[in-house]
């Protein structure tokens, strides 16, 4: 075991997979320059053909990733910041998500899109989205949001090896966090949620960086005598509804903490699944702690007004216990 930061874990995953398989390569804006600090050492090891800078042409290079994947490569496409996917949206939806189905299984799309999310850092509306819910509406994509260095490494490696398109939403509020990662090979299968803390009174499901808030809230709730079970969703599609339903069967209460906008959120989807398939376990309403349906402002204090935080989670959880 070593202590590794999230961003290092991401670099390790890419490095190991590129070493292992020649068909893996990374492309994106300024990746060869290691602009974001997440490609350290890659260009030195693999050269600028396999660590490939692209022009600012998201539709073009995302679609080129799809084409390369269809003939046998395994591209990692670096989106720089998640909302830049909007520029390439049609390629993601109409080509990447749909080709395997439309061509009756003839096409394989082993492509990984890395979509780091920046929010809460005064980048204003155009740069601060957390668009996993937007993409959840599109069948044919696997969506993940690893929340620990361990998962950042193991899930990214699984994503790269997956023969299907995977979009990995890296919450940049986690990039700097460090924790234990085993030496040697590490693969974390996609599609499984992780129980991060066991509890009996209320289930708190967290999405992406909300894990930090969820664990802090659980700590505080514990001091008030409320036992929260904290589940890190990790994989958005496929969604591990079994783990959530089992937990709710035990606790009878559900709160979902999700940094994205409330309407159509992953929080809403989880709520709907439980309201349909876990209804008889519920002893209280299902609470969603999300960002209200408005944009991210530039002003730092205004942004804080909108985003989920520990206090909001604690308050909602308390209300469920009444």
């Amino acid at each position: 075991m070593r202590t590794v930061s999230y961003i290092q874990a991401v670099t390790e995953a890419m490095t190991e997979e590129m070493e292992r398989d020649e068909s893996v390569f990374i492309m994106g804006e300024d990746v060869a320059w290691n602009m974001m600090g997440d490609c350290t050492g890659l260009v030195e090891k693999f050269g600028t053909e396999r660590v490939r800078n692209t022009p600012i042409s998201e539709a073009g290079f995302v679609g080129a990733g799809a084409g390369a994947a269809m003939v046998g490569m395994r591209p990692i496409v670096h989106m720089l910041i998640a909302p830049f996917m909007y520029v390439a949206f049609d390629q993601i939806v109409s080509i990447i998500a749909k080709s395997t189905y439309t061509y009756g299984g003839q096409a394989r799309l082993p492509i990984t899109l890395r979509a780091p999310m920046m929010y809460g850092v005064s980048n204003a509306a155009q740069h601060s989205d957390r668009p996993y819910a937007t993409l959840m509406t599109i069948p044919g994509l696997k969506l993940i949001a690893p929340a620990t260095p361990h998962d950042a490494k193991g899930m990214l490696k699984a994503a790269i090896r997956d023969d299907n398109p995977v979009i990995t939403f890296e919450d940049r509020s986690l990039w700097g966090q460090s924790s234990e990662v085993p030496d040697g090979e590490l693969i974390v299968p996609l599609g499984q949620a992780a129980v991060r803390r066991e509890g009996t009174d209320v289930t708190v499901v967290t999405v992406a960086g909300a894990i930090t808030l969820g664990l802090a809230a659980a700590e505080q709730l514990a001091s008030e005598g409320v036992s929260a079970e904290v589940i890190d969703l990790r994989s958005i599609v496929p969604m591990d509804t079994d783990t959530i339903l089992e937990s709710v069967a035990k606790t009878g209460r559900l709160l979902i903490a999700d940094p994205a906008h409330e309407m159509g959120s992953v929080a809403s989807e989880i709520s709907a699944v439980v309201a349909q398939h876990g209804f008889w376990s519920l002893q209280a309403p299902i609470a969603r702690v999300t960002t209200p349906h408005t944009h991210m402002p530039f002003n730092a204090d205004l942004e804080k007004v909108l985003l989920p935080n520990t206090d909001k989670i604690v308050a909602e959880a308390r209300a469920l216990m009444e």
Partner: protein
Amino acid sequence: MITVDDDLLREMYRRMSRIRKFEDTTKELLLAGELYGAFHTSTGQESSILKTRNALRIHDSMVGTHRSHGHPIGKGAQLDRLLAELMGKETGVNQGKGGSMHLSDFSIGSLGETSIVGSGLPVATGAALAYKMRGDDNVSLCFFGDGASNQGTFHESLNLAAIWKLPVVYVCENNGYGELTSAKDAISVEDISIRAVGYDMPGVTVDGQDVLAVFEAVSEAVDRARRGDGPSLVETKTYRFENHAVGRLPEHYRSSEEVEYWRTERDPLALFHQVLIERGFDEQQIDDLDAAVSEEIVAAIEFARQSPAPPPEAAFTHLFSPSAG
């Protein structure tokens, strides 16, 4: 000047005839209610489509458009599985999931036709990127229409291919219209090939009804790509004889004289027939080629009709590829 021997001439004619007869058949079956879906035929564009074996090898790939019946045929796909696909059958090349706008055949390098206008250009560019990275000498062929040349993906793809010197040939089939809108009203230049200047790549416009002219231009571009000298843009001026979608939509946007002129004076099959005669073929030889194709078509109809429909569970398969991941 590329030499075209008799064998090649014969094969070219055969492929054109296959496209023409396939399209005539599909139109008939559609109007008779045996086929369905949004249906865009290639009749009139056969020359423009054709890339016979010398220009393109089996390992080379191509990407098409919504007007796609002809493209896999041009590359050598079997007619029976294409027709079965148009009937939504399990034996269809896409197992009934794709239909008219997505005919494909990965086994012969047809990476599928995509019906979002302009969306295929990045895909073809990416296939070329793979070939270049792997160091094999495959070439990627990319079809798109005049209308598609106004999509942003055109610009981004050509720029990418140019800076990376990718082995890709962009073939713009300019049939004068995007749906009902004349290319004259939608495109800021007369010849789309001039746009190649903005990417520092060769651009050429050829008569799309003259299969030998198309063959020469595309062959040159393919050779160039295969040599590692990068991408090209080839524009073929052609025409679609049928309406945008068969059996749908108004026809008031173009004159019947115009359609008539192209059908009678500029029919690529008739023009090529003429060439064959000039090159010493006799009518019987040509009739024999046509007859063989007709037999293939009859067999294809039979195959498609006899094939089973996919079972209901098939709606759920192929969302993902089976994967260890």
